[in-house]
């Protein structure tokens, strides 16, 4: 399965890119995170503290156990500060 993975704010900065295309067999967000963390130090640093990370799956907020079945886009970002 091919996924677009997006990063925002300080996660984008730590990863060093706003977006990457990932080939994965992960069934859930949590499994995807484990694969990303194994990629390199940047990914490991960005995704080390998941309590500070929020997830969107196909542009809807989701939790780590959300299924990736049929999903095209996953985003990781810090808690939002709009308004």
């Amino acid at each position: 399965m091919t996924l677009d993975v997006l990063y925002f704010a300080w996660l984008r900065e730590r990863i060093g890119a706003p977006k990457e295309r990932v080939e994965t067999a992960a069934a859930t967000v949590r499994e995807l995170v484990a694969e990303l963390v194994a990629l390199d130090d940047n990914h490991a640093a960005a995704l080390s503290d998941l309590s500070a990370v929020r997830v969107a799956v196909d542009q809807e907020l989701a939790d780590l156990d959300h299924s990736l079945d049929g999903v095209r886009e996953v985003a990781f970002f810090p808690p939002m500060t709009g308004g």
Partner: protein
Amino acid sequence: MLVRVQQEEFDPASLLRGFGPGAGAVVTFTGVVRGDTGRMRALELEHYPGMTERAMSAIAGQAQQRWNLIDVAAVHRFGRLEVGAQIMMVATAARHRAEAFAAAEFLMDYLKSRAPFWKREIGADGPGDWVEAKSSDEDALSRWD
């Protein structure tokens, strides 16, 4: 319902022209870039194009249903916003004031913590820290459960 995400300045008066026909009560909230610290020149707002519009529309739709609003509007800017600039505005129109106030507060609480925007401070030397989410903002959501 009006939902807009844009870089450009917005004009509250023109956004509110003809807003909420038949309403007895119109409430607006406008967020402005504060320059409290003296060091800060501007805010840089990053957002998640696509998701931002979806999230704002969903929040506005929830408010509209919950309080039977006559109309609702939400405009949010992104990009570099100087101290004193308008960041965003919500407006609600209802028959009575209690509904219009409650819906506007609900919209603000949700936009703060559930719309994908991230603020960072820009000082004289360039980009500074990302603004951290406040636990009080997260707590504010629980009053609508």
